[in-house]
């Protein structure tokens, strides 16, 4: 239907032009505005390309220039000394983001299940839905301050650990996961639930065996996008993980660091050596974030095809 209608519209447009019922001024205005819309696309595309090109060219020379060392050595202590190694930050980003994911994703999906399978249109569910929107708009730096006051301060210097950073990132991810998962659960046809109930399954069994598997492509890709977002965050970590330069796999003990923190810290320095480290870390971080995004796309495409 829509295709036919579009073709009709196209034909009508060309017909109108043939009859030259449109004055030159109106036609020029139309062309100019279309060109301006296109310019907007070009502007953002150009900006993105420029950022990516700078990061890739500057970052690549650092990462490849000190190839294995970049991934295997700890971070140089003095900013003005050129030194290889970003392992501590790579490990930090991975373990902190992983911990945050383990906390936020199950809770977020469970919250979405409540909203869509139990709460529906009850007043409390509506309030929660509204609050999820509010929470998604809270700036990430406020999450960092909150975890600092709530979690780090009572523990003193022992509070500056990877786990605190993970908590802050989890607060950031939770509303994103809830919102995107609920959206996906809502798309599951009611027929499937009814069929499951008719076979005698309880709500919990229906949700776990029918609804969630059906919605899984969308739910998983939503979660991966939240992970990609969290992996790139800096602000919540400033208050929570301290400043380490050595690799720390343990999120429960000792200060930590992350790629984003290394970029932030080194970008502020005026030494070229430090700035180069920042570019290298930026390339590594972008590669990680894009990996997650691409994985999200592929996974959701694949899962939805097998169904």
């Amino acid at each position, binding site marked *: 239907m829509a295709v036919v209608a579009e073709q009709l519209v196209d034909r009508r447009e060309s017909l109108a032009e043939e009859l030259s019922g449109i004055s030159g001024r*109106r036609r020029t205005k139309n062309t100019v505005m279309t060109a301006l819309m296109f310019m*907007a696309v070009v502007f953002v595309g150009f900006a993105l390309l420029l950022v990516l090109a700078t990061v890739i060219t500057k970052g690549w020379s650092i990462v490849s220039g000190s190839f294995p060392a970049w991934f295997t050595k700890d971070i140089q202590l003095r900013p003005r000394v050129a030194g290889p190694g970003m392992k501590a930050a790579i490990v930090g980003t991975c373990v902190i983001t992983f911990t945050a994911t383990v906390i936020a994703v199950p809770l977020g999906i469970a919250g979405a299940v*409540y909203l869509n399978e139990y709460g529906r249109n009850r007043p409390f569910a509506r309030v*929660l839905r*509204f609050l999820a929107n509010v929470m998604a708009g809270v700036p990430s*730096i406020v999450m960092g301050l909150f975890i600092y006051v709530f979690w780090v301060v009572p523990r003193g210097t022992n509070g500056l650990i990877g786990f605190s950073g993970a908590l802050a990132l989890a607060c950031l991810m939770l509303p994103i996961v809830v919102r995107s998962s609920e959206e996906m659960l809502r798309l599951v046809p009611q027929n499937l639930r009814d069929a499951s109930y008719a076979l005698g399954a309880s*709500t*919990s069994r229906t949700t776990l065996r029918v609804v969630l598997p059906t919605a899984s492509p969308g739910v998983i890709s939503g979660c991966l996008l939240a992970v990609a977002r969290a992996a790139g965050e800096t602000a919540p970590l400033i208050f929570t993980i301290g400043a380490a330069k050595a690799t720390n796999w343990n999120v429960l003990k000792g200060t930590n660091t992350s790629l984003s923190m290394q970029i932030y810290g080194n970008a*502020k320095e005026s030494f070229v050596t430090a*700035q180069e480290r920042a570019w290298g870390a930026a390339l590594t971080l972008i590669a990680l974030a894009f990996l997650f995004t691409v994985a999200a796309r592929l996974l959701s495409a694949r899962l939805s095809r097998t169904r």
Partner: protein
Amino acid sequence: MNTPPVEVPDLRPRRQILDRVFKGSTFGAGALILVVLVLIAWTITHKSLPVFRSEGIGFFTKRKWAPANEVYGALSFIYGTAVTALIAVVISVPISIGIALFTTQVAPSWLKKWLVSLTDLVAVVPSVVFGLWGIIFLAPKLVHVYKTMHGWFGGWPVLGHLFGPASAGRTFMTAGLILSVMITPIITSIAREVIETTPQTDRDGALALGATRWEMITGAVLPHSIGGIVGAVMLGLGRAMGETIAVALVIGSSATITANLFSSGDSLPSVIAFQWGEATSEIKRSALIAMGLTLFILTIVVNLTATAVVNRATKRVQGA
């Protein structure tokens, strides 16, 4: 076929318990959002109290920020937050709406997918990377642009104040420019969704009456989706106000209130991030947390208004 009948145990009581446990735990997870929000408000308000006790309302009205003398006025940071967010919105709105319109009304369907991916990609770039690019690559190049613009417009009545003398590349304007790129994806994606709800009959009707595509857009698409677009812009404004790291790196970090957009300044989130490391005294930390509270309240007000506007717009549209 020939399997013998199996004795089916009655699972009902156990199942009901499991079902209730499951329901209870999902309820708990959902309620966690409420709990966390209340905790955020409670804890950061509590930790802000020391500075409010010593400064009173002056915290919001004083422009002087001198931690060495224990003077804490946040006005210049509130000003900086507002100015950078406004610059970002002013630049980003025409661009985002342009992209949304181009994607939905002009582009053929094969291009549409790519355009959606393009805006999504911008959202994936971490803010600290934008900040790094801004401070090392963009800011030094912009100094010349700012000086040229000051040369052109310096004598003009209003623009002369806005485009004042520039001494460095790290300014309100640079921060606003970076922010405008960063909030474009959020405005574009919401605007796109709203625009796509325009009934096909409205568009066809406009075209059938002989309207050009642009006239169809201004006559049918925009009136239909204006409410949603306003909401989208406000959500972008909220995002721009809370953005920390990119702004912290390119705004220049000086507490100033001036109409000159080419002057360095500071914003609430960036001063929190920048001065946190040096803040060892309880009262200075309290002052920084109080700025976080200010930011929390500001963004919530903006976001709530945005949500209300979007909801009203969609209701009106659905009702029509």
